[in-house]
């Protein structure tokens, strides 16, 4: 299982903030997982295509080609605006 999280405007666009799923067959890195999610529908396809999104794996920001393993927590979010 992996835990997937979506924050802020992305959470609102997708209508979901948190989900758990079995890592799909053949998905071992972030690009593959993102593509798999984008295949869900047009909303997911377009929302996750935004190259300003950041991704954190296990609560650490990662690069676009990061690998993913069972048990990971993966989060997508727009640029941060705290402070």
């Amino acid at each position: 299982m992996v835990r997937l999280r979506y924050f802020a405007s992305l959470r609102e666009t997708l209508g979901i903030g948190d989900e758990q799923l079995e890592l799909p067959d053949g998905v071992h890195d972030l690009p593959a997982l993102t593509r798999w999610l984008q295949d869900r529908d047009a909303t997911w396809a377009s929302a996750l295509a935004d190259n300003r999104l950041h991704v954190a794996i296990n609560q650490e920001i990662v690069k676009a080609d990061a690998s993913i393993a069972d048990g990971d927590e993966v989060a997508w979010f727009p640029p941060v605006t705290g402070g």
Partner: protein
Amino acid sequence: MIRVQTDDFDAGTELEQLRRSNNGQAGAIVSFTGLVRELNAGEQVTQMTLEHYPGMTEKALEKIEQAANDQWELTASLIIHRVGPLAPDDNIVFVVAASQHREQAFRACEYMIDTLKTRAPFWKKETLPGSTRWVTPETTV
């Protein structure tokens, strides 16, 4: 020390506590207070809601505080950030650096708030009269 909280903080209490536990060490304390502005990007803000990523937020703030302590000689440091609903003039964030030397305190305090603004997972949503909008890095200060 770092804290993420929905409750308000009192800058004075925090500064006074730092001063009392100073033991004659620091000669300089620099603080940054971030407040909710009433006008942002030309629009009247009636409320602001701060979303964050619990767990990652604390790790990010601890990393920022640690990096400041690695780069500068600080006798104390503090980051407090609020989450949840806020009104204009409400406190959002409080960042403090204490050092023997004022330059170190200024550099460390500015580094912490600058880094927090680009690295810590907080998102601001503004309520305007009749609508809401997510703040983007282009419409924040």
